[in-house]
């Protein structure tokens, strides 16, 4: 590695944050971060820039046992502080309320650029092998890229993509490509609304040419959920 190569360092920092810098190269880079403030700053740059990826993921409350384990490990000989959480929560509630009001005030005063929404979903096999990559954007376009391992189904059947609305029957969207091919289509206004509400898609195996009834007739073999970026 050449410590003074700024562009190369940036590339390594990016791959470190994304996670594709692996093995010995990753460990070497971590040692390098310890001695170079400049390299650390480049890593922080990428952490900040890609943080919106993390914010697009759904939050989830962890089991209470996790906090109990943390307390037991850090403070094994003393009583837990959990009993007084309500005090902390109350304080947070007030500070949160004030902060949220501040954000609203800022939003009112800050001219917003046009909102560009982007959704992504990976349809995977039971072995977590990616099969189709689904991208949807707020301008009604939906694209589906079939990964090369996806081969045409047996018996000449087709994979059919369905939108699963929050209520009501599945809505047929398209017959899916296989073997690395890509499909691009436009959704109707109503389909966009329903997709944004449920973000749920399913894939069934249907007779060649698609379901003859307009509803899934074969087995639903995969499901996925889109996450918003």
């Amino acid at each position, binding site marked *: 590695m050449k410590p003074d190569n700024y562009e190369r360092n940036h590339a390594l920092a990016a791959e470190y944050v994304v996670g594709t810098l692996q093995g010995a190269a990753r460990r070497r880079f971590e040692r390098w971060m310890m001695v170079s403030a400049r390299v650390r700053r480049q890593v922080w740059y990428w*952490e900040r*820039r890609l943080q919106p990826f*993390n914010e697009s*993921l759904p939050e989830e409350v*962890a089991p209470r046992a996790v906090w109990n384990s943390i307390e037991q490990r850090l403070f094994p000989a003393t009583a837990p502080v959990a009993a007084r959480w309500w005090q*902390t929560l109350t304080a947070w509630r007030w*500070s949160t309320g004030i902060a949220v009001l501040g*954000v609203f005030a800022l939003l009112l005063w800050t001219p917003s650029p046009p909102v560009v929404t982007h959704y992504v979903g990976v349809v995977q096999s039971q072995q977590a092998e990616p099969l189709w990559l689904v991208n949807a954007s707020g301008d009604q376009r939906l694209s589906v890229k079939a990964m090369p391992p996806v081969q045409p189904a047996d018996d000449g059947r087709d994979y059919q993509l369905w939108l699963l609305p929050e209520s009501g029957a599945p809505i047929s969207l398209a017959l899916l490509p296989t073997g690395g091919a890509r499909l691009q289509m436009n959704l109707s206004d109503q389909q966009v609304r329903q997709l944004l509400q449920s973000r749920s898609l399913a894939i069934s195996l249907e007779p060649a040419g698609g379901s003859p009834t307009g509803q899934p007739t074969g087995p639903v073999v995969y499901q996925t959920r889109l996450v918003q970026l």
Partner: protein
Amino acid sequence: MAKADDGLVRALARIAQGDRQAFAGFYQKTHRAVFGMCLHLLRDRDEACDVLQETYIQVWHHAGEYHCDRGSVQTWMMSIGRYRCLDALRRRRHEADYDSVSDRQESNTLGPMDNVGNLLDRQRLNHCLKDLDERYRSSIEMAYFRGFTHQELAVAMGEPLGTTKSWIRRGLDVLRRCLDT
């Protein structure tokens, strides 16, 4: 720095001085986002719980090392958790299925860590991703959201290893140039 982050910075300062009450409040306030990310990356609830625990042990010991060059407190927290997830994935390559993560709940409410800065960052990233070559974008998304290695990307996309390496590298380079404009 956004107002919403001020409270978290103050909490970290108190944690660095050994304030357990502040630590409990900090955990309550921040753990949902970290845990959600861990679940998404690891697809294994028990493993996500372990990583979450390790993440906050690290926060307790290193709270004083946070500074604003690291980005928001949330960015710092998520980075700690993300690297621990990547370590876990290295030890155990993609065994769990997406659907094993059940009962997810999406929060549509405005949380204390949402702020105008975050919104603009997200819009900028979305804008740049939209303009990115699809092969580059797919590679980056699969690596970031699933922790795929170069080799796994090559197999998944049916391309030579050198090609997917090149896609990631070029994609990130194009992304940086767009984000910096």
